[in-house]
């Protein structure tokens, strides 16, 4: 996987690998990995959200509140802890 490239925007540049929880709202990316056992991976998989899929981060809340992501025409809210288990490679803004 590509490491940090595009040194002008060091924090959230394209290709950066970051958890869905820490990704910024307004960014999109591809899911690299869903860690933390079968529970969360299975639940996401049942909705078609799995490794290799593109997701957009719609919003996040203060104080580590839930994350809202979009995959296709599905919007899904999930807790900050769950979102931390989803590793995403940023591909840009949407």
């Amino acid at each position, binding site marked *: 996987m590509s490491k940090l490239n595009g040194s002008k925007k060091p924090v959230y540049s394209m290709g950066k690998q970051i958890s869905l929880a820490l990704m910024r709202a307004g960014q999109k990316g591809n899911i690299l990995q869903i860690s933390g056992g079968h529970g969360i991976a299975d639940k996401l998989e*049942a*909705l078609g959200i799995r490794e290799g899929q593109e997701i957009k981060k719609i*919003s996040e809340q203060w104080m580590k*509140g839930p994350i*809202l992501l979009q995959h296709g025409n*599905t919007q899904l809210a999930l807790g900050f802890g*769950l979102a931390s288990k989803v590793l995403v490679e940023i591909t840009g803004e949407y």
Partner: protein
Amino acid sequence: MKILLMGNPNVGKSAIFNRLTGANVIVSNYAGTTVEFTKGCLKVAGQNVELIDVPGTYALDPTNKAEQIAVEMLKGRKEEDVVINVVEATNLERSLNLTLQLIKQNVPFILALNFWDETKHKGISIDVEKLENILKVPCVPICAVTGEGVKHLVERIKEAKPSSLGYDEKEKWHEIGNIVDKVQTITHRHHTLLERLSDASVRPLTGLPIAVIVLFLTFKLIRFVAEGLISYVCEPVFENLWSPLMLKLSYFLGSAGFIHDLVIGHLVKGQIDYGQSFGLLTTGLFVPLAAVLPYVFAFYLVLSFLEDFGYLPRLAIMVDTLMHRLGLHGLAIIPMLLGLGCNVPGVLSTRILETRRERFISATILAIGVPCAALQAMVVGLLGKHGMTSLGIVYGTLFIVWIVLGVLLNHTVKGKSPEIFVEIPPYRIPYFRGLSKKIWIRMKWFIKEAVPFVLLGVFLVNILYALGIIQFVGKFTAPVVTRVLGLPSEAVGALIIGFLRKDVAVGMLIPLGLTVKQLIIASVVLAMYFPCIATFATLVKELGFVDMLKSAGIMIISSLIVGGLLNLILP
């Protein structure tokens, strides 16, 4: 033969069920409206068959109680039973996951592509014929809320069969991707206004003000509609049309005596006083129909709109952090809001929460801290004329109790609560017919449930007073009721009847001539101390007897503590 309606949550199974059976099942725009299966009857090719509205599920390995019911129903089906697999046409890829699992189970089924109308706005076009050729089962595009295509769906039920589509489980998503690529084309389009509003309601900077405004307007609107109906419709009807009739009947019954008092109640200065007379045909009808029903109507008018529009799951996102302090997550706000109408559907909908722990905490704090519309209507009627402060104290106290109890239970009940995981549906403009039907279902349900119990309550009040039982119990309980709560010993009558109906119980306070302070304490205690019988039965069913006992213990103790504290603190 049985037909099971199966599909992901919020794909419109209940809407189809209502269309097909003419039944009245509550339909809303959020996942988890249906938490229990409903049976109905449908004619297919001249034959009566049973149609079952199954709770939504994403996969055949259940993650909550509602999904578990769905999977059990599928496992328990008989040879001749068929499934109508309802999918969201705007979310084909995700929906086909369940479809492929049904195929693997060799289930005979047909596919209903619901929300067909929305595909056009979303720039999605699906080749139904191609899909049918691939899946090898009938595929029917429909729009359940308007009824388009539903007739065609029924006609094709007889063609249901297991699909011969074979696929490798490991390649499932690859297979789904192939199918979607073949049958679906998407054209680009711009964000609609509703989508922008949707984004605004889930971002903290805009979403929190929106939540505050929505809740504020909700309360304003409910009071405006309800008070308007009471002052301009219900009270005039009772005062001008019903009272003269009742006075004639009173004269006919001899103006006094046990039967007269039971039917008409006591006349106040020769007139009927619907608050104080306490006869079956006076107070017994006035309370449910003129005092409470307008509030129930106004409440469900606003709530049903918010439900169908799709606001509730977004509110769940905004309150998630707060709810975590109570050992719950954001979705638990939905049972609480439903509970503000009636605790029974509120407690039932705690099933959308995943664990026993969450269901215990949410049902308990709901039964204690969330007053139903019937109780609220009476309390507002009773305290409203003493100004907003006293009402504010009642609501404020209940809100604090709700939070404090939640925090305490979160720290004492073993285990950890899971995080929120819920699909957020698009905003949808409610259909007038669907909305009015839903409000009508809820009103009918209220009248059917409430009126008999209110009448029974009024009947019992008369009997208990006539036999001197309330006075007798009053002497026994005086140490608690009088010393701790600062109420007159007769107020125990309201606590007894409160087990039957809380609105009647509040009504019993009217003739006692309580001070504002006593009214506040009595209202809070009545809301908290124990659920009404209907809620009690639901709690036993949902929590089991042992947990219900624990819950009841918490109710009684906390109401005494809070009532006692109010008695000490209030001037």
